[in-house]
């Protein structure tokens, strides 16, 4: 029987609220539907409530208000062992006194499986752990332990698999490899994965849908491409990748339907922004543009962009990374903006520091955010 065929349900959080006895509100009336079989990521900085949300779904933390459903089944107050939910813990939480095979067989045995050996074998093969079956967790490497934690959870074929920063303890190279591995396994077993992480790249690589959380609320939710190209708040614009945010006055709307644009005045330069990427009603806003969308040319040379060019910028720093070069530019009004340029070889070298440059971008890449929002929201505090 294929796993994906089994009747399951969407994970539905309704008005979910968590207030700790000390008054701290970790999760604020969260409404969320995670479709069955999807790979869903909860992304946010530490303390944003993503792990608390996960623990409420797992039953390790009790909701103050609201409900949790899987399909039609209300599991809000069910004991953890009564839920069709399994968790891959951040530190794996493997049972140190049991072998790998015993760890993996723990769930099926508790549920009364007479002889889980065959299933255990299959799962160990799927996670490439067959050789390690008789070892103890302490004898395994970090990546192997991570796979044991995963195997121990998915063998139970839960309706929902929760992953709490499962790759956090691995080094960068292993983490990238495991991301691909996790995605492959998710597609193979067809379970709903809810992945909690603070690593935006990890969330975007793996998940079909990413929900960006901040201060107990979901700031924005969508496919990685939509979130990245059309962020709705300064927090999302800064936390998910990087953004240049430039103060602008809104002049007015033009056109209708898909061609509708909003005209803005950025320190004297007029630019247009697609209406679908405008997220403010006020007459002020932040024009957002991703650094890799910013095009630069030494003053006077033609730029391959149909939009208006900002002139008078000066290169104050150029970091050669190999695949690209990061330029820091000082704009005439004093703000510094960032530009990532692919090293395609066309330029034949770097633009030296101190060079005056013109700056532009294709208008469809820009977005407009509400001016009342903190321009530094979501930036790493270090």
């Amino acid at each position, binding site marked *: 029987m294929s796993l994906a065929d089994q009747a399951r349900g969407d994970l539905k959080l309704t008005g979910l609220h968590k207030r700790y006895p000390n008054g701290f509100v970790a999760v604020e009336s969260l409404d969320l539907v995670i479709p069955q079989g999807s790979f869903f990521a909860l992304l946010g900085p530490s303390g944003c409530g993503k792990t608390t949300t996960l623990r409420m779904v*797992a*039953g*390790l933390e009790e909701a103050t208000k609201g409900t949790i459903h899987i399909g039609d089944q209300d599991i809000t107050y069910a*004991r*953890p*062992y009564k839920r069709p*939910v*399994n*968790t891959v*813990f951040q*530190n794996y*939480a*493997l*049972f*140190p*006194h049991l*072998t790998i095979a015993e760890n993996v067989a*723990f*769930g099926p045995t*508790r*549920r009364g499986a007479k002889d889980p050996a065959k299933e255990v074998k299959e799962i160990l093969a799927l996670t490439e752990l067959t*050789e390690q*079956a*008789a*070892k*103890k967790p302490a004898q395994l490497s970090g990546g192997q332990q991570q796979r044991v934690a995963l195997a*121990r*959870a998915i063998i*139970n074929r839960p309706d929902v698999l929760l992953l709490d920063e499962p790759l956090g303890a691995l080094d960068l190279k292993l983490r990238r490899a495991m991301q691909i591995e996790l995605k492959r396994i998710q597609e193979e077993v067809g379970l709903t994965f809810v992945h909690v992480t603070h690593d935006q790249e990890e969330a975007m690589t793996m998940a079909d849908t990413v929900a960006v959380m901040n201060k107990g609320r979901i700031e924005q939710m969508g496919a990685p491409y939509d979130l990245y190209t059309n962020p709705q708040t300064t927090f999302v614009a800064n936390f998910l990748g990087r953004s240049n945010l430039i103060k602008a006055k809104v002049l007015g709307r033009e056109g209708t339907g898909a061609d509708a644009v909003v005209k803005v005045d950025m320190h004297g330069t007029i630019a247009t922004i697609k209406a679908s990427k405008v997220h403010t009603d006020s007459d002020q806003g932040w024009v957002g543009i991703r650094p890799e969308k910013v095009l630069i040319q030494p003053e006077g040379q033609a730029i391959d962009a149909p939009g208006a060019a900002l002139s008078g910028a000066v290169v104050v720093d150029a970091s050669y990374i190999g695949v690209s070069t990061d330029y820091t530019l000082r704009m005439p009004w004093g703000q510094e903006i960032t530009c990532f340029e692919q090293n395609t070889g066309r330029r034949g070298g770097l633009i030296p520091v101190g060079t005056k440059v013109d700056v532009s971008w294709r208008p469809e890449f820009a977005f407009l955010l509400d001016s009342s929002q903190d321009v530094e929201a979501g930036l790493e505090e270090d």
Partner: protein
Amino acid sequence: MITRLGRWIGKHLMLTLGILVLVYMYIPNMIVALMSFNDSSQSRNLYQFQSFTWDNWLNPCEPQGMCESLRVSISIGLLATLVATAIGTLAAFALVRHRFEGRSTANLMIFLPMATPEIVMGSSLLALFVAAGFGGQLGFWTILIAHIMFCISFVVVTVRSRLAGLDSNLEKAAMDLYANEWQTFWRITFPLVFPGILSAALLAFSLSFDDFIITNLNSGTTVTFPMFVWGAAQRGVPMQVNVIGTLMFILALAIVIGGEVAARRRAKGKAAAL
């Protein structure tokens, strides 16, 4: 020759010092073992080796009252260990796992008896027993009550440290994997804390078996093994005491070696099963 020895010692200084310390620690046990084969019947000087004999080993219970005192000590030791380990383990779980009003005070009060001089504890217990009207019944049961009391603190401290080092996520993981509270305790918590409980029990037994001061004050006419030895030492220790001493040492050694061998065999068995 001397310089070569000097060089060798220089090269192996750590090893040499380590061996010297071990020799220093084990000399008393060696002497005891040697004396257990001493034929003391010919001499007044008990602490000098006269001639070799098996007699002490063949008739260990010859000195009057010695084996009876040993039996009393072992019974009290086993009972005190059992009760103190049970109470102490439960107390350790409460202190580590539950947040309650007065937890830190309770922690301190558990620790306090260990810091109290035995002579103070022993005499206040005696005062208590007499005041409670048990002055005439001092003996096996009063000793047992006293031993359980001072063993509990040591058990709590030993089990508590083991329990505190236990990742509470393991229990959450077990619950997440369909184990109810009962199964979680017996499958995960208990096996992981068991080494701590076992060492607490061994510690409790040796503390109880060993105790002299508190026991002496609360024993009435009952004589434990340490009290027998103390009493006998006034006249001259019978060589059979050395037999018991050697046996106890061998027993302890056997427990340690047995544990080590079992652990190694387990590790090897797992490796062989691959």
